[in-house]
């Protein structure tokens, strides 16, 4: 493998139902940044689907210099095989230095298949991507390679972090966790060079048949599975007042939970109780609203990634475990917060 032949940063521009997924723009934002540190500064989006040619402009606006379009009726809904064939063929034909794929339910299927097909390494679910040296620090009698893609990812359920390189194979491939990379400010009217490419699709044993597509409606979530929990305590004041917590949970796509005091008062059922005699939770974000933070409660939520506490008592023990503690009146802050978040999401 002549590594020098491989040039440019490619992004798999995921689309679902002919709508570009947000992750594609995020990856383009990152690709732009990475390309600035490389000799070849070209950013290419690879757009795969059926009747997707009209989607290229937005990719240009978000930073693609070039868009390779693989458009074929076989590619209507995502299936591993025709998509893997499409992307692997693009890689073999255009020889990119770096290929970024979103760590979505599609990308985490496509990425491994393609990397195995083009015989290169793949780093999963990255949260940081940089260009740098490998090894990081020069080691005697070992070549230190420059301009390598350094891919950082959490492992062990987020307990450890590893930085990985792919020094001897090309392309360097990564799947990237959605929501982590920054999109650029879109440049209205930007145009990209469009390259149409069709490697030909002949169904074989590896093509599966889609019998049905069912768009799911989510049911109520177990608080132990929830990514965001909006938890209320006695300070919420009444069962009716939990409405403001439910509204906040809704805009965040989260779930409401509560402390023991709330269950004891009969405001909420036991299966929503967090704490020593309730459930132990580890969401990405835990809002402790009107919860004083008795040790029995804290034992059930202290492992949460991010804890935000709102309490009017500035000495409440919940502030000892909160990443962000806000001293104030929850009745006023929570509805305001819901409105602000709604606005922030709308602006995105």
């Amino acid at each position, binding site marked *: 493998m002549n590594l020098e032949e491989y040039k440019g940063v490619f992004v798999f521009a995921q689309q679902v139902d002919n709508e570009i997924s947000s992750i594609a723009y995020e990856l383009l934002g990152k690709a732009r940044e990475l390309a600035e540190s490389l000799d070849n500064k070209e950013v290419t989006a690879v757009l795969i689907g059926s009747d997707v040619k009209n989607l290229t402009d937005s990719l240009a606006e978000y930073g693609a210099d070039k868009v390779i379009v693989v458009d074929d009726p076989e590619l209507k809904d995502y299936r591993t095989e025709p998509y893997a064939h499409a992307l692997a063929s693009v890689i073999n034909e255009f020889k990119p230095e770096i290929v970024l794929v979103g760590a979505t339910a599609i990308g985490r299927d496509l990425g491994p298949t393609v990397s195995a097909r083009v015989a290169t390494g793949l780093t999963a679910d990255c949260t940081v991507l940089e260009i740098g040296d490998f090894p990081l620090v020069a080691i005697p009698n070992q070549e230190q390679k420059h301009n390598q893609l350094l891919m950082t990812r959490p492992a062990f359920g987020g307990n450890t972090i590893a930085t*990985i390189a792919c020094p001897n194979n090309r392309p360097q491939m990564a799947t990237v966790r959605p*929501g982590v990379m920054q999109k650029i400010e879109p440049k209205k009217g930007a145009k990209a060079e469009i390259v149409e490419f069709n490697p030909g699709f002949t169904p074989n044993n590896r093509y599966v048949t889609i*019998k049905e597509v069912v768009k799911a409606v989510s049911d109520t979530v177990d608080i132990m599975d929830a990514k965001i929990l909006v938890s209320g305590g006695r300070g919420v004041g009444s069962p009716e007042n939990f409405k403001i917590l439910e509204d906040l949970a809704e805009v965040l796509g989260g779930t409401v939970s509560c402390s023991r005091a709330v269950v004891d008062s009969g405001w909420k059922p036991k299966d929503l109780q967090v704490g020593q005699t309730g459930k132990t939770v580890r969401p990405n974000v835990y809002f402790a609203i009107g919860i004083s933070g008795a040790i029995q409660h804290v034992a059930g939520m202290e492992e949460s990634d991010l804890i935000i506490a709102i309490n009017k008592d500035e000495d409440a023990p919940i502030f000892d475990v909160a990443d962000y503690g*806000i001293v104030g009146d929850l009745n006023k802050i929570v509805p305001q917060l819901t409105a602000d978040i709604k606005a922030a999401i709308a602006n995105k």
Partner: protein
Amino acid sequence: MKVVVCIKQVPDTKGGVSFNPDGTLNRAAMLAIMNPDDKAGLEAALRLKDEYGAEVTVLTMGLPKATDVLREAIAMGADKGILVTDRVLGGADTWATSTTIAGALRNLEYDLIITGRQAIDGDTAQVGPQIAEHLGLPVISYAQKIEVEGNKVRVQRQYDDRYHVLEAEMPCLITALSELNEPRYMTPGGIFDACAAEITTWGRADLKDVDDSNLGLKGSPTKIAKASDKVKKGAGTKVTPDSPEEAAQYITDRLLEKHII
């Protein structure tokens, strides 16, 4: 019908993680368990055994200690266990691991290969699809329901906001989600049988059609540049805003910063 389930022994991260005094991960203090997604895959296979009399073989790659998960699988109802172990296979990334397992699978007859979607230590979700690629099999990942009809499998394949019902011809490879089912427990009698069962052990020499350059640490395209344990978070910030608006703004900014919204 013959089903091979690929399983992995992993440290249990659920009950929290234990650290050595020097800050590195204390693997010895953590319970070694069968990876949860793999266990769901095994349960799916055992249901095919219950329903169609499928023969279920479990295969793992790891240190000799990994026979524990093979015995657990047999105690749950699997028919036989194969351990792939060899010093030259150590330090493998997902490419080298999938190459190794594919090399072992070439020795076996199968209609269906089931792997877990991902292991809780690495969280990569790569090995399953990569095995399918090496073996030239159709792959259906993220399976939340599996049915067999004649020589076809019908699978509910999960996506973020939907699922597809997919049909593939066997042989094929499926990666299972832990949501797929509630795995059964072992039985006491099964445990006694499993401890008496013969575990097949394969080394490098038993791998079929595999090049040395694709195995172990040397055969791994990805290299670790740096590994560190996540820093335990220190004390947080407490603020007393002047108004509810200011408070809400403060929280919203933090959520934006952290890409939560």
